[in-house]
């Protein structure tokens, strides 16, 4: 029967996913050596054998935390705890080209708080396009949008357009809280930009274009969110299956139930 020490080490190494048998064997040997020496030391202090082993395992640390810390860098990194780093990174905190997580930082980032070139999330900050409840970026679209071009329920920007808006120029309909320029005083480049994005819904022909733009944003949001969510769910399912195939409970289960 598998000992509790083996179960602990199996858990650490299943999460670590080292992918090199020689390396895995060396790490297992080193951790086992540590735990056996610790158990011996605790027995010398007066702990009964079984209790000494449990105490040694407890002081060694959560196998999931250690396993994830042992995990080498990889292209696709999916974690249920800690920080994921990879080309595609998925985890509570994720840093990658495509990052999905509670806090996601990447070229394309999606999450509770997302920071990137393109960012989608509750709070999103992007160099190019930010979409979210609170969105900040060159082009921001959201409940509260702040950006060079901001579109949203409440928009603040160089060009701000929305339910309530304030900015250098607030073209079109909605409640204008403050606008530095008026239609007459706005410089030509602002007019060009506004036409480019069809933001001035009061202008003939632009209302339809504006609606097309907002529809496009909504669809883009849906498609990207759908893709990212599918990717996230698919990869997390794969990780769960991998752990199960190694006889491990999915990460997140109580580690004390070894």
């Amino acid at each position: 029967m598998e000992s509790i020490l083996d179960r602990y080490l199996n858990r650490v190494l299943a999460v670590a996913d080292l992918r090199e048998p020689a390396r895995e064997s060396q790490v297992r040997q080193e951790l086992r050596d540590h735990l056996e020496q610790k158990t011996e030391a605790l027995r010398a202090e007066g702990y009964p054998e079984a209790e000494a082993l449990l105490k040694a395992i407890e002081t060694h640390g959560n196998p999931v935390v250690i396993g994830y810390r042992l995990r080498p860098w990889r292209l696709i990194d999916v974690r249920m705890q800690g920080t994921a780093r990879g080309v595609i990174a998925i985890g509570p905190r994720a840093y990658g080209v495509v990052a999905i997580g509670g806090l996601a930082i990447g070229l394309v980032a999606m999450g509770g708080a997302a920071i990137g070139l393109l960012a989608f999330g509750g709070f999103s900050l992007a160099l190019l396009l930010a979409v979210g409840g609170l969105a900040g970026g060159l082009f921001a679209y959201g409940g509260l949008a702040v950006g060079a071009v901001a579109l949203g329920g409440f928009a603040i920007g160089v060009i701000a357009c929305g339910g309530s808006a304030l900015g250098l120029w607030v073209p079109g309909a909605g409640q204008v809280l403050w606008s530095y320029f008026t239609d007459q005083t706005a410089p030509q480049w602002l007019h060009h930009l506004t036409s480019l994005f069809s933001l001035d819904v009061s202008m003939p022909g632009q209302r339809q274009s504006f609606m097309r733009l907002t529809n496009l944003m909504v669809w883009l949001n849906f498609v990207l969110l759908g893709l990212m969510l599918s990717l996230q769910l698919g990869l997390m399912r794969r990780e769960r299956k991998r752990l199960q195939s190694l006889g491990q409970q999915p990460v997140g289960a109580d580690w004390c139930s070894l």
Partner: protein
Amino acid sequence: MPQLAKKTLDGNVETIILATLLEGPNYGYALVKDINEKHAGLLALGEGTIYPVLYRMEEKGLLLAETRQTPAGRERKYYRIAPAGRKALAENMQQWAALTQVMETIRKSLPPQTKPVPKTA
């Protein structure tokens, strides 16, 4: 001595390992024991968290590792500080010395009521 905050310690685990290994090559368990005696609380997340740090330092060339036989005939991995590790340690110490100096200047310039008060039992 006041308990150091985890975030202060986290960034300096490598430096502490390097400094500990200056005393000579050592293996994981003995290293942890040594660190726990000198710097209580450093491995608050568990003694096993030292191994990912050791492997990372080995990969970075800060540490060299070799396998030795124990008296019981088992293999044990010993770590020793590499030349790059000595250099990194010296640089870190310089940084700390400079930071300490800055903090000391700030501390001296603080009005009396903002200076830390020793805790009473």
